[in-house]
Structure formats: structure tokens, C-alpha cells
């Protein structure tokens, strides 16, 4: 559904309906490590459980690809210069272990 007044109302309503889920979502925390602050930008569009769910099997290139997809395909307002820091954080903390 594109560009209708329904959209604005939609966001508010889904918030109300999913209030319980939003409270739960706030319990999902990223690991404390350098780059976490930049990685927190992801929360604008999706809950952070997407990150741990996709671990640990992506390498740095894999995580870089994911971050770029969010920017280029989904229009995430993440500065290009933040990509490296976010991908490094994700690869370090949610990436494929070196022995695998």
C-alpha cells in the first residue's frame, strides 16, 4: 500500500496492537563492543534479533553485503562511511568463527 493516509494511521495502529511485542523487543540487546553505536541504526526498520538470528555464519564480506543491501535496496538512511564500522562490528561479534 503506497502513499495513502492509511499508511500514517497504519504505523500508529500497528504500534498499539503490537505494544506487547515492542516491550519484548526492547529486551533484545546487541553485544557491547566498538561499533555498536553505529550498528544501532538498524533498529530504525527492524528489531535487532535479525542480527543474532543470522549468526554465526557470515564473514566480513557477507555482513558488508547485508549492510549494503539495507542501504541500496531498502533505503536505510545509513551513511556510506558507517558501512565499514558496522560490518566490522557485525563480523567481530556475529560473524563466522575463524575455525569454521
Amino acid at each position, binding site marked *: *500500500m*503506497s502513499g495513502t493516509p*492509511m*499508511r500514517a*494511521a*497504519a*504505523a500508529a*495502529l*500497528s504500534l*498499539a*496492537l*503490537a505494544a*506487547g*511485542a*515492542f516491550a*519484548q*523487543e526492547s529486551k*533484545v540487546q546487541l553485544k557491547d563492543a566498538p561499533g555498536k553505536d553505529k550498528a544501532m541504526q538498524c533498529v*530504525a*526498520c*527492524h*528489531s535487532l*534479533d*535479525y542480527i*543474532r*538470528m*543470522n*549468526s*554465526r*555464519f*557470515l564473514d566480513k564480506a*557477507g555482513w558488508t553485503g*547485508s549492510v549494503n543491501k539495507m542501504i541500496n*535496496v*531498502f*533505503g*536505510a*538512511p545509513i551513511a556510506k562511511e558507517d558501512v565499514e564500522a558496522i560490518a566490522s562490528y557485525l563480523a567481530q561479534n*556475529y560473524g563466522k568463527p575463524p575455525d569454521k
Partner: protein
Amino acid sequence: MPRSSSTAFSALRRKLVCGAGAVTALGSLGASRALAAELGSTAALGYAELPDGTLAEHVLYALPGKLPLIKKTYRPPNFETPIEYFRTAITRNDAFFVRYHLAAIPEVKAAEWSLAVGGDSAERELKFTLSRLKKEFKPAEVTAVCQCSGNRRGLFEPHVAGVEWGVGAMGNAVWRGVRLKDVLGRAGVKADALEVVLDGADGPALPKTPDFVKSIPVEVAMDENTLIAFEMNAKPLPHWNGFPARLVVPGWTGTYWVKQLVSVKVVSKPEGNFWMSTAYRLPRGRFKTPSFKSQVKEANEPITTMVVNSLITSLRNGRQIPRGKPIDVKGIAFDGGSGIDRVEVSTDLGASWQRAQLGKDLGRFSFREFAFAAPGRERGALVVMARATARSGETQVEQLIHNPAGYHHNVIQRLYLEVV
């Protein structure tokens, strides 16, 4: 599974590896690490295991109006049906899986909802309220499986990125509504019609994110089994499954079953948005499913119908069976719409197969129950497998057909049991 039986299973695995000449098969199991009864574990069901981060993220959580389901992600909401709800052919509404791409999901009121019908290949534009749709068109009903294209993605080895589904991104329901072809007929379908484009009321959190819009070939839209459904198992659709109306495309994967349907357009050109042109694609020719001809590209093509599959729901990996007691192998099977011809069960790592009894035939798009009682055994280890074959002749695969987006996993399950 308590720690003790996990230990017992390790012993069983050693025995099998040493004694049964099944080293290769067991080597590919590689799953004993996952025998602890982690919520939603697929190793516990006799498959490759989900990524460890996926398992760590699992909790049971009840969305409003739903039973506790396996949480994959909160926002957008993605929740998987636990295996116990697949022990019947019909999946209950409050246990039915939830899958969204975009986070702005409106709570649509039935009285305020309307469906716009039009497009450049429609003779006229029409708008229907829910009561008008119900009043002006003949009711139609179909029992059909709705399965996410990515169901079992988490079982892929190597893993691929996405929602890491186990086996529960599927369900089977009796869908009731009106035929899409009747509605399109009222609008008038021109001779140049190519696709029918479907949009739901949901939308993205950011305006720049592509809205979730899908299309189906016009001949699929005109199939008598393709419905605009208002009811699921004789009740209104749950909010999370598309209230007040969703598309039902029996045989085709869930991506085409657009929820909270608000717009249907008959068009003469291929729909080109991200969700059609880039997402939901398979390497061309890797599967024998039908082609969505107007969307085929040189390297890839859209996913279309489901591949044949089955799920044993009565056993868990590592289970101990008392000596001499029959082993009840029960489950469900389904395919992309030809119907299930047979389900065969093996208790000797695939060396021989016996036909299971099939349950009531609820139609070619439905789950079909199966049951097989394997005779009691002397002490020792065994591997139970089930293999469904569709009336089309298609059967489940022994080795995964890997593809970049993680679709069409229908590898035969291998449950390792011990008779004690």
C-alpha cells in the same frame, strides 16, 4: 531432551558409526551437538541444525490473538508454528505461522476496508466493500497449504542469510471467500492481460523501502482455486494472517498469498518492483517447478509452486523405544498441487521402503496425514526416514539442492532412534 538421553544418543551415534556401515550418512548428520532440547531445534527433528544464533534467539511468544509461537523476529513479526500443531491435517488459526517483510501493519477494520480492482488490462475500475464482495459473488472454498518460500531455510548447509526458519513456516487451512476470476471477470479482462498485481495494506517503516507488491500470471489468477479469502477454518482471518481478506493461491508458495489485500490490478507488462525482479528468485532451471514465463530472466526466475515434502511429527531424534514395541511413524505430506500419491517409510537408512497408510484426502492442495507402524525390534539403533511422492511423480530429494536464497528444502528427514 534431558542431558541423560543426549548422552545416550552420543553412545548410539558411536554404535551406528562403528557398526552399521553408515558412516557417510551419519557423517552428514553432524548434528549431535544440537541434541539438547533447544526450542525449535531442527536437529532434534532429524535435520541439519539451525544456526546457533538462531537457536539462541528463540523464545515462545504470543502475539495478540495467537498462541505462543517460536519467535524468529519481533519487528517485522516472524513467528514459527511449533511441531505439535502439525499432528493434525488442519492447522489451527491461533497457531498458524506469521510472516511479514515490512513493519507498518495496520489493524484494518472490516467496515472500512475496500478492494480496488483495475489496471491497464482491465475494462473498468471497480471498488468493493467486504459486504458487497460477499453478496455479489458465489462463495468458494479450498483446503490448501500456505508455506513460506523460505520454510526450512535455516537447515541449509552452508547457511544462507534471511529469516532462519525451521520446519514451521507453513500451515494448512480451509480457506473460504470468492474466486479472484469472478471478481476480475466483473472488471473485464482484456486480451493483452499478462499478470495480476497484488498489494496489501501493510507498508514499510521508511518511505524509501520498496512496498511489498507481488504479481501472479494471469492464468493463475483466473484459476478457479485462486481465492480472495475472508475465512480460515470457518472463522474470520486472524489479524496476523491477513484480516479482513487475503489472496489464496493454492500450490504456490506463501509469498504470493498477499495479506490485507487492498488492490488488484490486471496489467499487460511484467511487474518490475524489487519483490518480483530481485527477491524470491531461483537459479533458472535448477528445479522442475513451473516457470512464471513473463518474469524469467537469463540467470534466474521466480519461485512458483511448492516442492513435495513431508514431516514426521510423532518422533524426535534420539528417542528410546522399548524393545519389541511397534514404532509409530506419523506425519504429514504435501506438494505443489498434484496431491500426494504415497509416503514410504524406511527403518534401515533407506535400504528398503514400505508404504505408509494415507489419511483422509482433503484435496490435492492439502496436508495429507500418513501413518506407519514399524514392527517391534530387538535392542539396537535404527534410522527412520519418510519419503513423500506426489501424483506428478516428483519425490523428495536425498541431497539438498542449494540455492542462494534458501528455498525448496525438501531433503528426506533422518531420525535416529534406539531400541532399548
